[in-house]
């Protein structure tokens, strides 16, 4: 089923005409309203008038997460604050988060895209949506919530956590669509089983899962254990939030990008050169309808490939492959973006000399678990157990305060963290995804 038949099935030519018109408007607008873009474009010798075709997009310089950080918090907003009605944020590479804003029209656009997303994933007006994405600064919870209301479905804003209660509500309220991270879906299945609740007796038809990497094998496991159709969703707050792209339940073969609002490119992460359809590289997005926080050629660091063969669902939109990795060292832990540099800055703040550390990521009972190994040097060592345990607690608390995730902190002997060519290996990801 297609929510916006007209825009989701446009002939390519018509779609590209709309894209070009919107791109020109966006480029013109950011050049005159955001000092960063004016300077950035001028430095690269490109003016808004130079954009005459969609290919001219390649002449524009990239925008990176560093640019967002340099303009923290509101420096890249293209409208005055009195036009901004919502602010979201995701974790940045160091202490400060990446901040994004929305006008009333942006929220309306986003809500429509999420309604499209939900319908692509099998939801209709008559469905009850169990939304276990986190509500708050993270875009997941509220993004799905507004989409569900726009679609006219009933939404249960349960947010994350308190899994037993979630199972009880699933049993009693009879939701038909599940929205959460794929790992949380598996945890729900396990807790339900412990509670003697069989997913076959629940009313779920399908689930829309994302905000963390997962695999085809995991899809099969979720579909089997939860007795529903599982589709993949893609989004990031810098571009919009969830609802940038979604799989259709008919094909479950690549995620349709809502190209009437976003232009996607795949580039070679080393040279920045655009790559042809079908080739793997880094995903880059340009927003062409956003008012408060437009981004021009934003480098996502996510690795994917684009395909333009027609899909059996009828959508003419380009499809992106399931994200297969990152071009940087970002980890996604229970849906939260974590950069090793953030943990490092927590340790640095605590001690003058940063101890060697290593992050170990495991998936224990379907949930991500982050262990922070910290080498005990003379500076932090103490002859009393109490002091060392207080140190562990303090590290754990400071990481929690900064990232909002619980970790296990483990003190280890010096030189136990593997070093290659003098540099410590910072992350060991044992997750089998």
């Amino acid at each position, binding site marked *: 089923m297609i929510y916006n038949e007209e825009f989701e099935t446009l002939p390519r030519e018509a779609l590209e005409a709309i894209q070009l018109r919107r791109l020109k408007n966006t480029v013109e607008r950011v050049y005159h309203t955001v000092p960063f873009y004016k300077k950035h474009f001028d430095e690269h010798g490109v003016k808004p008038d130079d954009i005459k075709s969609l290919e001219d997009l390649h002449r524009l310089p990239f925008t990176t997460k560093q640019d967002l950080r340099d303009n923290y918090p509101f420096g890249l907003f293209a409208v005055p604050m009195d036009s901004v009605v919502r602010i979201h944020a995701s974790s940045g590479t160091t202490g400060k988060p990446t901040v994004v804003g929305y006008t009333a029209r942006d929220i309306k656009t986003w809500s429509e895209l999420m309604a499209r997303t939900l319908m692509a994933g099998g939801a209709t007006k008559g469905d009850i949506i169990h939304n276990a994405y986190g509500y708050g600064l993270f875009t997941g919870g509220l993004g799905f919530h507004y989409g569900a209301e726009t679609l006219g479905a009933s939404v249960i804003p349960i947010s994350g956590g308190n899994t037993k209660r979630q199972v009880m509500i699933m049993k009693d309220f009879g939701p038909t669509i599940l929205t959460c991270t794929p790992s949380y879906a598996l945890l729900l299945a396990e807790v339900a089983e412990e509670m003697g609740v069989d997913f076959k007796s629940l009313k779920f038809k399908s689930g829309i899962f994302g905000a963390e990497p997962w695999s085809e094998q995991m899809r099969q496991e979720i579909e089997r254990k939860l007795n529903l159709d599982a589709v993949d969703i893609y989004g990031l707050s810098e571009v919009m939030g969830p609802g940038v792209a979604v799989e259709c339940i008919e094909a479950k073969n690549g995620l349709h990008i809502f190209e009437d609002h976003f232009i996607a490119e795949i580039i070679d992460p080393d040279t920045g050169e655009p790559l042809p359809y079908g080739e793997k590289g880094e995903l880059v997005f340009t927003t062409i309808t956003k008012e408060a926080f437009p981004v021009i050629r934003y480098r996502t660091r996510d690795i994917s490939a684009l395909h333009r063969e027609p899909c059996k669902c009828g959508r003419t939109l380009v499809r992106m492959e399931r994200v297969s990795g990152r071009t940087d060292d970002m980890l996604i832990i229970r849906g939260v973006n974590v950069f090793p540099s953030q943990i490092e800055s927590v340790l640095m703040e605590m001690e003058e000399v940063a101890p060697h550390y290593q992050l170990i990521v495991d998936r224990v009972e379907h949930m991500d678990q982050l262990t922070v190994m910290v080498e*005990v040097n*003379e500076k932090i*060592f103490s*002859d*009393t157990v109490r002091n060392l345990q207080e140190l562990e607690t303090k590290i754990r608390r400071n990481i929690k305060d900064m990232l909002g995730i619980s970790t296990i902190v*483990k*003190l*280890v*002997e010096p030189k136990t963290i593997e070093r290659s060519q003098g540099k410590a290996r910072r992350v060991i990801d044992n997750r089998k995804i």
Partner: protein
Amino acid sequence: MKVEQISVFLENKAGRLAEVTRILGEGGVNIRALSLADTSDFGILRLIVNDNEKAKKILKDNGFTVGKTNVVAIEVEDKPGGLAKILDTLYRAGINVEYMYAFVQQSGENAVIIFRFDNLDEAIRVLQENGVTVINGSKVYTL
């Protein structure tokens, strides 16, 4: 009056304690007393040895994290109630014992116990005022 103790950080895994004692043994360092505090994932080994500087150096050379702390060695009457009397004195003076452990060798007729206090100087003052024998470091290393 103070005795120097060295402490070593150990991960809670097989063979670590053996490794420390082997290194000290090969280096000709004699262990006079020791105690091991452990949690589920790490341990702290505290040692009184005959040669602190040497012990510290060879352990560090072998990659261990080593700390130095001042503790007090006290003579305790080797009879029922001997330790209780001293602890009671400390309690009355409001002095908190971080940890303590016993020496293997006796000092004459008396047992020797190592105490770690938060406030070392105050503890020594109180003990001496109450007639408790605090043993000199140099004597302890060679007991």
